Structure formats: structure tokens, C-alpha cells
């Protein structure tokens, strides 16, 4: 193979690589640069690690991190809910094709739309509490979005409802590719629903579950802004009860005119997300291997 022919494929992809490097690389470089500057307007003086010191020394930042970590608690729930629904659909309960569409609808709708609807539902005098009061369950009629103790859990309910839809579709797609004869054989051997799920279906689902868990972890750390923005009244409230790291960055950049601080927090969030991409790739590889060895 000549030197020229070895280079040819790289030359073909070079324009796209350069475009991507410009679109993603340039802003990234600028964010790293800004994180070391006291930016006023569009630039500012170099101040070393001062922005990082200020961010890491601020209670609000750590509170935001804690809220992101708290949101991770939603992942096991999402996995269980998604698996249960996916298995039910896989069992082809009557009308399963229609149910499949219905469960995926929340994922198709834009987050702000469903969050606004949910917010109305969960108001103190909203439909959810009205129903609870009608059922004489007044003790359960909480101030879902107006209480600092409850608001983040309300956000979590919304996230579980919407993001589980992705899990259901992923899991169902994987199940559809399983060898049905094994499951039929188990049925003939007298395995009940739980035994079939536990010993036959789940072991073959490991790769796709890992994939979903890693994707959801990244979501919880860096893609829940729209949820908290709407439910938290655009303030991360009540108080600071629903402030997450993304919201912290948004506030620093847009509302308090501190691009340097926003950049420092962004760099830290970026590095954490990058660290999580490696397990994501591993999970994807495992899912592919599972598929290949089936």
C-alpha cells in the first residue's frame, strides 16, 4: 500500500473532523481558558485557580452536587420500573402494541411541556392533592413543589416517569431479540413468570441494563436542567432545594454575570462526564458482545 493510499481515507474524513473540532473544540478551549480568568463582558485578566477556589469554597455548589447525587437514587427505580413494564409487554399482554406506544409518549414530548403540566398537577391546590383529599388521604396531600423537603423528590418522580420510557424501549428491543425457544422451553418445564424473568431473561439483559444505567447516570449529572428549571420556578427553588450543578452554571453565567465561575464549574462537570463515558463505552461493548454470542 502506498503512502498516498494510506492517507486517502484520512483526507476524506478530514473536513468533517475539522468541522467537529471547530464546533466542539473551540468552545471547549475557551471554557477552559475562561475558567482561569475573571471575565467581565467578553474577556478579563488571568487569575489562576481563583475561580476554582471560589466555586469549591461555596456552600451552594456543594449543595448542587448533593442534589445531583440525590437524583442518582432515581436510577435503580427507573431500571426496575423499565424492566417490569418491558417484561409485561414482552409477555404480550392484550393490547401490548398500544401500551408500547403509550409508555414511550413521555419520552417523545419535550421536557418543558411535561414539566409544566406536572407542575400544575402537583400544586398545593392542584389535581393530585384534590384527589388525595377526596380520598380522605389529606396527610399525603403535600406541598409538592412549594416545600424544600419535597420539591427534589417531585422532580425525581417526573424524571423517573419520563426517562423510564427510554429504558422500557431499550429493554423491550433487547428482549425481542432473545431466543424465544428457551423461554418456551422454560414455560413447558413449569417455570413461573418470576422464574422466567429472573433466570432466563435478566441474565441475558446485563449489557443493555449497564448501558441504560450509565446513560442515566450521565443524565442525572448533566442533563436535568429543564426539569429543575420548570419545577423549581426558574430559580432552583423553593429556596435552593432543586439547584443542581447545571443550574448553578446557568445562574453564574446568565443571572450573575460570572462567566469565569460558570466556566470553572463547567470544566469540573465536563471532566466528571468524560470519566463516565469510559464505563459507557465498556457497557456498549458488553451489550454488543452479548448480542454476538447469543
Amino acid at each position: 500500500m502506498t503512502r498516498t493510499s494510506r492517507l486517502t481515507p484520512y483526507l476524506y474524513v478530514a473536513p468533517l473532523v475539522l468541522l467537529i473540532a471547530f464546533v466542539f473544540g473551540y468552545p471547549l478551549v475557551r471554557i477552559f481558558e475562561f475558567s482561569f480568568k475573571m471575565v467581565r463582558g467578553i474577556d478579563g485578566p488571568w487569575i489562576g485557580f481563583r475561580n476554582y477556589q471560589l466555586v469549591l469554597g461555596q456552600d451552594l455548589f456543594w449543595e448542587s452536587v448533593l442534589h445531583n447525587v440525590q437524583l442518582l437514587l432515581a436510577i435503580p427505580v427507573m431500571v426496575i420500573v423499565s424492566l417490569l413494564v418491558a417484561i409485561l409487554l414482552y409477555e404480550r399482554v392484550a393490547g401490548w402494541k398500544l401500551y408500547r406506544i403509550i409508555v414511550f409518549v413521555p419520552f417523545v414530548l419535550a421536557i418543558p411541556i411535561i414539566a409544566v403540566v406536572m407542575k400544575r398537577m402537583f400544586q398545593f391546590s392542584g389535581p393530585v392533592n384534590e384527589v388525595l383529599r377526596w380520598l380522605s388521604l389529606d396527610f399525603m396531600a403535600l406541598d409538592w413543589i412549594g416545600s424544600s423537603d419535597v420539591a427534589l423528590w417531585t422532580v425525581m418522580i417526573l424524571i423517573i416517569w419520563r426517562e423510564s420510557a427510554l429504558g422500557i424501549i431499550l429493554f423491550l428491543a433487547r428482549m425481542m431479540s432473545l431466543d424465544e425457544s428457551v423461554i418456551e422451553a422454560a414455560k413447558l418445564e413449569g417455570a413461573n413468570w418470576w422464574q422466567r424473568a429472573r433466570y432466563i431473561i435478566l441474565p441475558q439483559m446485563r449489557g443493555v441494563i449497564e448501558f441504560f444505567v450509565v446513560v442515566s447516570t450521565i443524565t442525572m449529572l448533566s442533563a436535568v436542567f429543564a426539569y429543575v428549571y420548570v419545577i423549581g420556578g426558574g430559580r432552583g427553588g423553593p429556596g435552593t432545594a432543586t439547584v443542581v450543578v447545571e443550574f448553578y452554571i446557568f445562574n453564574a453565567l446568565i443571572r450573575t454575570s460570572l462567566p469565569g465561575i460558570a466556566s470553572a464549574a463547567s470544566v469540573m462537570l465536563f471532566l466528571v462526564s468524560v470519566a463516565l463515558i469510559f464505563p459507557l463505552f465498556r457497557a456498549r461493548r458488553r451489550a454488543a458482545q452479548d448480542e454476538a454470542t447469543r
Partner: protein
Amino acid sequence: MTEKKAWDLSRRELMKMGLALGAGSALGGMLPGSARAQQLTMDWWWWGEQELPGLQKVVDGAVAAYKEATIKPMLQDTAVVISQFQTAAAAGNAPDIQYLWNGIYHMESVWFGYLKGLKELIKPEILTASTPTALSNFGGDTYRVGWYPLPMLWIYNKKLFEQVKLDPNAPPKTWDELLVACEALKTAGIEPLGGGIQDGYWSEWYISHALPQNLDTVGEAVELFIGDKDFRDPKYHEHWTKLEELKTKGYLNADMSSLELYPGIDLVPAGKLAMGQSIGTRLPADLKTANGEIGVMVMPVFGKGKLAGTPLLDVQGLGISSNAEDPKAAAAFLEFLNSPEQLKAFWDATGWIPSNTTFDSSVITDATVRSMWETWGLGKNISNVTNVMPGQFYERAAIPTGQQIVQGSMTGEQAGELAANTAKEWREFNPDLVENYQKWVVDLSAS
């Protein structure tokens, strides 16, 4: 033989064209001023249709009526009013005329050098009549012309007052009178006071009304941020203690924490809440909803500062950017907006009052609205102190404190502690801005 293309000019033809263009320019210089000014184009970035429907019509009408220059208006999105201007100004591409919120929301641009002082550009009588408010002053100059006013007030439902034998024409003036009224309303099963605090603005408005009660000047509020005064001093967090009192006595509406500002205000004209905070621009519509049974009042007095009990007036304004090609021409347009014809056109298009003390208020037919304008707009008033708050303080202390007190998870004293710590944190994050704030105190304390 090749065909001669249209753009293939000979050297002679090129010279001829150059001479013709030169002669044209020279002749243009001899034309009357107005004809030359036609060629000047100015950009005007504005905002406000979002809070005052009809403003688009005002802008379109003014642009069409102005013959001295071509004005190119652009309505800005709420989220980028400040950042879009500052970014453009930093790049040298700012519009000639820029919409400016009051106080720190434009003062930062003054400090960056993005705005022109107006005292040398606008006729003093027009500048004063437009009431740009004291928060537009820095270093002895003024940086905004007032455009439209936002009187900040408390409203109450007269019918609900009558139901519990309270005088509908004599709303409470002191804190003790307020507590008596609240108790009477509560006893009758009527939610006495509140609104919606979920989006945080109620917190801000509460501070606007209540903090000045223990201040002698607006400059004193700035001293709280730069560290010369301390929110831990009971005098400076008494307003939050009073809010806590309203909460613990059960006078705030039960769903206040889960309602947003405007749905919360709607409760008063709807007869579901007796008193609440509001804004003048809403008054005509609220009067209509409640069949005229809405009264306006200044927040009842508890404090001992010189500003206590004074009506609160915020004003949205316009300024001239440092990038303006011809600042005098931009100033002329701002003066044009304050001409009697344009002030009337403003009223006709919006049903709201323009910010100008020379506006003929006899056109206001509703007695409540006219009385409100005479008290809040033409009488002695003070600026909105939350407009001197640094953004970091606003987000970290001003909004959360109110929300947490209303939901019962914070005391007034704790709010003072959080405010003091946040002010300190802001000083650490923004050492450069502290210096400017220190200079600003001089202007604000003088006015």
C-alpha cells in the same frame, strides 16, 4: 472577438464613475440637513412587549413618525436583554439606542463604559420629566431616559374588606392596623394576605416594599452589600422578621409556596385573597375583573427609616450606547419619544401611562388609576431598592429567604445571617465591582 461583459470597465470609465460619485457626495453635503439625516440609520434594541402589551405598536408608530433618521427596532428576548447588549458593546457593535432596566441592570454597562452619559445630550427639562430615577445616576451623570413607569403597590379587595366590616376606603396604614385587619379576615375564613412565591419574584417585591422602611436613603441599601452595614443588625432584617410573623400567625395563603407571582396576584381580584403585592400596569385589568372593587395602598409601616411609607416607583428606560454613530441624533430621537404627541400615542396604544410628568393625566378615566398615578408617579416616591442588589445576592439571598420564610423553614434572623454571608461572598467573587458600588453610594445617598 470576446464579448464585453457588463463589469469590464476601462480605466477611463472607472475614472468617470469616480468623479461622478465624488460630485454626488459633495452635492449631498450642500443639501438641507433634514435630507442628509434621512441617510442616517440607527438601531434600537428594545424590550417590554412582554410586560406591557401594546408597546410594539408604540415602537412601530414612533419609528414611522420619526423623519430625521431611519430607526431599525429589534425586540429582544427577556433572557438576553443585558448579555446581548454587553456582548455587542464589547465587540463595538452595540445598537445606538438600548432598552435599559433600572439600577444595577444597566449600571454594570455604565461601569464597563458601554453607555453614554445623557446630561450633555438630552435637554435637562426632558430628562428630569422622564423620571429616570436616582438609580440611573453615577459619577454626577444620568444614563437613562425614563420610558414607562412601574408603580409598585399593594392591592386589596374592597368587597372582602366590607364583608368583615373593615373600611374599604381606609386600608391599614401601620403594621398593627394590618395585623388587626388580617385577624378579622382570617376569623371570617378569608385568606388575608399573600400571593404566589414559587418563581421568587414575590420575595423580591417584598424586599422592595419592606427593606426601605428602615433606611434613610437608597444608598444605605448599597452599604449593606459593600460591607459598611450588616444584615445581621436587627434593623436590617426586621422586614424578614415581619414576614415570619405573618407566616406564624397564619395570615399568608396556604398555597402561596406553590403558586407563581401572577396567578397569586389574580387571587385578589378573584375575591380569594384579601391583600397582595401588585404592580400598577396590572391595575386597569384587575379593576375590570373585580368590577372596580380593588383598592391600592402603600405597604403598612413598621420601620423607622426616612423612606418608610413612601410610594415605590420603578421606571423602565432607554439609553444611548457608546458605539452610537451619532449620539446627538440618538438623543434627538429620545427627545422625540417624549414629545406630547408621542406621549399621547403611548397612552393610546397601551392604555398605560408613559414615564413623563408632563403627560396630561386627565385622559385617565378611571379614578383609581388616576389617583394611583398622582400618588405613585407625581408625588414623592422612592426607587426600587432591589435594583441595586448584585445579581449574586438576588439569586442566593433575596429570592430564597422569602421562599423559605413563607414555607416555614427559616426565621427572619436566619434570613439576615444568610444575607450577610451572601453579601460577603459577593465581595469575594467581585472585588472589582465592590469598588464601583462604593462610588455609586455617593450618588445614591445624595439623591
